[in-house]
């Protein structure tokens, strides 16, 4: 859809070789990296591009007349264009660079919603949100009297869309929902959610930090109002994220950080602000990171995305099937069509102990609450173990996980 003209067929084995770190060992065992949900590894082309840029065309962006400044500005703005295409945004002016997904959501909270909120106004969110899509709204509760309305998920982790619909009232100012749960893997039916919310005149903010990695995103087709993305999970660098927003919202938003680049004129007793997106990009932006993010998106978009998704789903299905043999293991999150994340609990084995044992086998999984304590409460667990799959994983990784689980059992029980 938005992909470059020459899409490569996806060759998982070849792709894996693009990631230098995956050939390393830990404790003498080959690294089996199943923590891409926390952060993805970076292909060589991303690191090369950042370094080449820094060594040939680097300077601060905007307002410089000299060659390097123009070259760097071109690269920075070209990155904005790449992001706009990746999300199918109508224009580059819909794209604000932030320092990460978390800041993208906070930007909406501080600049769009905070000035609107009245005590008693409601924000609808789900119990499977990441803390990054919870705490900014808690701030509005604490500071401005907003009311948080929580929508439950079903026991299989799927969204109860009727419950969501019912939660939207005339007092609702925003629906804030994840595209893909970082614990359950659940993919939410965004088009349907947006249609229902819009029918009641309520805008929708989507936390796309996981979703944009695993799904093809078309913000226009989905008609979402806000879509937040983080770079480092998308095979890109740390220190950068993106907020997509509709132009009318961006125009209505007041500035967030104040500083250089976001102003029009500053005097002793007056300040006027630049138009969006510059208004929200105070100070020197993540210039080198923008170039790295563009390289990462080009890398990802260079593949047949459907084939990447199919590959990840195959790994998930294979893993799901394998762990059925363990009657002491309970998978949390089995929603239809879910993305490639497998969370589970094991009888008598704390996630932490499990992760330590897996780690010594070279297998990196995540153990804990995954910044989703409300969801932990919903499933009545203190923590879970989580294996998350990326385009570079393979069935051998799953096998290593499964063997590690059996071994952990033998040690701990």
């Amino acid at each position: 859809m938005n992909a470059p003209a020459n899409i490569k067929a996806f060759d998982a084995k070849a792709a894996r070789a693009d990631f230098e770190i995956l050939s390393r060992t830990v404790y003498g065992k080959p690294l089996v990296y199943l923590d891409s949900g926390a952060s993805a590894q970076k292909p060589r082309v991303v690191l090369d591009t950042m370094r080449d840029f820094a060594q040939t065309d680097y300077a601060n962006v905007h307002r410089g007349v000299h060659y390097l400044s123009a070259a760097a500005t071109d690269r920075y703005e070209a990155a904005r264009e790449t992001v706009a295409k990746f999300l199918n945004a109508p224009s580059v002016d819909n794209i604000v660079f932030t320092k990460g997904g978390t800041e993208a959501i906070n930007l909406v909270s501080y600049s769009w919603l905070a000035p609107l909120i009245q005590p008693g106004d409601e924000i609808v969110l789900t119990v499977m949100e990441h803390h990054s899509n919870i705490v900014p709204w808690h701030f509005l509760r604490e500071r401005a009297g907003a009311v948080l309305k929580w929508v439950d998920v079903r026991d299989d982790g799927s969204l109860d869309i009727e419950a969501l619909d019912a939660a939207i009232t005339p007092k609702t100012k925003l629906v804030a929902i994840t595209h893909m749960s970082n614990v359950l893997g659940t993919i939410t039916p965004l088009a349907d959610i947006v249609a229902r919310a819009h029918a009641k005149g309520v805008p929708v903010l989507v936390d796309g930090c996981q979703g944009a990695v695993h799904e093809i995103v078309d913000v226009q087709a989905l008609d979402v109002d806000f879509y937040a993305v983080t770079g480092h999970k998308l095979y890109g660098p740390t220190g950068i994220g993106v907020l997509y927003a509709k132009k009318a919202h961006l125009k209505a938003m007041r500035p967030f950080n104040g500083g250089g680049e976001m102003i029009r004129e500053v005097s002793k007793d007056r300040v006027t602000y630049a138009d969006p997106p510059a208004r929200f990009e105070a100070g020197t932006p993540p210039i080198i990171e923008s170039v790295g993010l563009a390289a990462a998106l080009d890398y990802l978009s260079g593949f047949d995305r459907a084939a990447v998704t199919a590959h990840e789903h195959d790994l998930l299905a294979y893993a799901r099937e394998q762990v059925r043999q363990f009657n002491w293991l309970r998978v949390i999150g089995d929603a239809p069509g879910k993305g490639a994340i497998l969370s589970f609990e094991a009888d008598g084995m704390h996630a932490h102990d499990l992760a330590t044992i897996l780690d010594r086998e070279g297998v990196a999984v995540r153990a804990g609450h995954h910044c989703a304590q409300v969801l932990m409460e919903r499933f009545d667990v203190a923590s879970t173990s989580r294996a998350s799959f990326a385009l570079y994983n393979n069935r051998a990784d799953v096998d290593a996980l499964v063997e590690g689980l059996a071994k952990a059992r033998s040690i701990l029980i």
Partner: protein
Amino acid sequence: MTDHALRELYQEVILDHSRHPRHYGVLEGANHKAEGYNPLCGDKVTVYLQLDAEGRVADIKFEGKGCAISQASASMMVDMLKGRSQAEAEKLMTGFLHLVKGEDASDLPEDDRERLDVMGGISEFPMRVKCATLAWHTYKNAVEEGAQ
């Protein structure tokens, strides 16, 4: 070798303590109390203390949930602290902290060292040291700031 370290970490004594923690529960009549929290794993522990007039640990109990390491460490701690004077407890704690970090713990009394020795395997797992020390830090908090 890896296996050896793991088996050492999760040896039977530890697993037993973690499965059947000693002195678990609320201590009625406690005059000191503190809660500890390990953001790394979400583990929590509450330590209840009854200090007598000289500051001796007349009684002690704990409650909480967490990984095998933190549970076992808490269980062993209450087991060993009961009846100690503050000076003894202090010394025990210092020795323990040295031990789990792989540092010299030779100033611990022979007896104590032998009992604590099972926790020594943790020094091979730096990311887990916090699990092992949680209960001890909570105990210290209970003594110093936890008067009820």
